């Protein structure tokens, strides 16, 4: 499996995606800084405390990488079907299930690692900025940080699973754009924020979506050995 993942990553030049996710991180940090700076100029209080600031950062990152995952799914899976290169792949003496699982694992792991890493990077950057610019009135406490870290990891786990849901829609007509559009709907569900109330904060919602994501993956590979690859 590890070898399949490695091959798959080489084949699709994953290095390029790592680079673009780094750039994304910088942009998110830039946006956060810009918001803080502009609001500060106007004398308004942007973030009441660190909890609010970090949650905003976490939400933006999550939204970004749900869509990023959809892009990966469309490149790694949907496009293989669309270009029929899947017929090449499925003529190898390798279990078809393993081939697809390898691809989906890349998406899940990439999403998880990136969400966690981005939170550390952007959060850290914001903390440094705050030391100089005094954006947030209160101070970051160790317990606050601990609590936030736990929620970041839990959310990252749920998000990396639910990011597989677009696979279902994309596979119906082998369309990359459908995949990405359906990921935007997921973002609308889990990343909206109405005066501090988010659907994502109802534990039931992210967990259900994550389970649906896992089921999507299961459905995609369940029948793969018995089905015609092309019609």
């Amino acid at each position, binding site marked *: 499996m590890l070898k399949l993942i490695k*091959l798959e990553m*080489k*084949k699709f030049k994953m290095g390029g995606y790592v680079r673009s996710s780094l750039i994304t991180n910088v942009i998110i940090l830039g946006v956060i800084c810009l918001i803080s700076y502009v609001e500060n100029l106007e004398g308004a209080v942007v973030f009441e405390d660190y909890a609010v600031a970090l949650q905003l950062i976490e939400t933006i990152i999550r939204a970004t990488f749900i869509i990023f995952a959809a892009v990966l799914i469309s490149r790694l899976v949907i496009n293989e079907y669309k*270009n*029929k*290169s899947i*017929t*090449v*792949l*499925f*003529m*190898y*003496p*390798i*279990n078809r299930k393993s081939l697809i699982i390898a691809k989906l694992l890349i998406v899940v792991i990439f999403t998880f690692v990136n969400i966690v890493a981005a939170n550390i990077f952007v959060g850290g950057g914001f903390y440094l900025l705050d030391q100089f610019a005094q954006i947030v009135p209160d101070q970051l406490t160790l317990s606050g940080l601990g609590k936030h870290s736990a929620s970041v990891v839990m959310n990252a786990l749920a998000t990396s699973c639910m990011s597989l849901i677009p696979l279902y829609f994309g596979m119906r007509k082998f369309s990359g754009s459908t995949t990405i559009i359906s990921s935007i709907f997921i973002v609308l569900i889990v990343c909206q924020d109405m005066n501090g109330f988010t659907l994502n904060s109802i534990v039931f919602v992210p967990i259900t979506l994550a389970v649906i994501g896992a089921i999507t993956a299961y459905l995609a590979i369940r029948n793969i*050995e*018995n*089905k*015609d*690859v*092309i*019609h």
Partner: protein
Amino acid sequence: MTYIVRTTQLTKTYMGKEVVSNVNMNIKKGEIYGFLGPNGAGKTTIMRMITNLVKPTGGEIELFGEKLTNHSYHLLGRMGTIIEYPIFYEKLTAKKNLEFHCEYMGFHESKAIDEALDLVHLKNVDDKLVKEFSLGMKQRLGIARAIITKPELLILDEPINGLDPVGIKEIRDLFKLLSAEYGVTILISSHILGEIEQIADTIGVINHGKLIEEVAMEQIREKNTEFIEFVTNDCRKSVFVLEHILKITNFRVIDNRLIRVYDSSVPQSEITKTFVLNDIIIESIHKKNSSLEDHFLTLLNGGGISA
């Protein structure tokens, strides 16, 4: 005799329509099996079923003496294939494509890639992306990919599509070499009959999803008769002359100018002389061998010979 591929009552139905019905094919070890049939006859579907890309609705496939099932992954490693259009990862170079292919096939031989590219005469393609290849180049690369792992069975669907005449000859020689030197069994389909005729040991003719005939090329060659082909200005008169003056009955009118005379008892000079004496203008005369093409067309027309 060992069979590499055997199908029994192989059937495939798409939406209620039988595209392949009850095909019993037998491909012997080491032979080149030519697969003939008009477009849409079911050749590609059968080849896809042999490579497990499409699952049969009925019947069985036996590969290397083993029944092909949904889990027969190990069998896939023993064959090389081109099915229909040669498909690659377009954003990678030819070499990278072959490297990945070898990795997935579990084949590790550093020289193999260059050797394969040499065999199909693909040169100076090191840094070129497959996206920029012409169809002929892709076809060559496809053949390189199929043979690189030195498979026991080659399944080639229209492998000479898009190749120029020189290319066709090179590839034909390559197939002959693979068959003769390495004992590779080859299943090759083509709609260019002349090609199949030159390399196949056995041919299978398929039409409307049914295997009409499976016959050794030698048998067809034996059946071949020589004939003389006339192009005249007046067909009706020529027929009259042949029938009533020369007393020849074994001839065939191909179209309203072309007549083939199969009877060899009357020499060509005699026929020509009689034609001329009867004011028939002969535009051309050829002595010919009935080829696979005739055999093929006869089969597809249901064996009806028009006189």
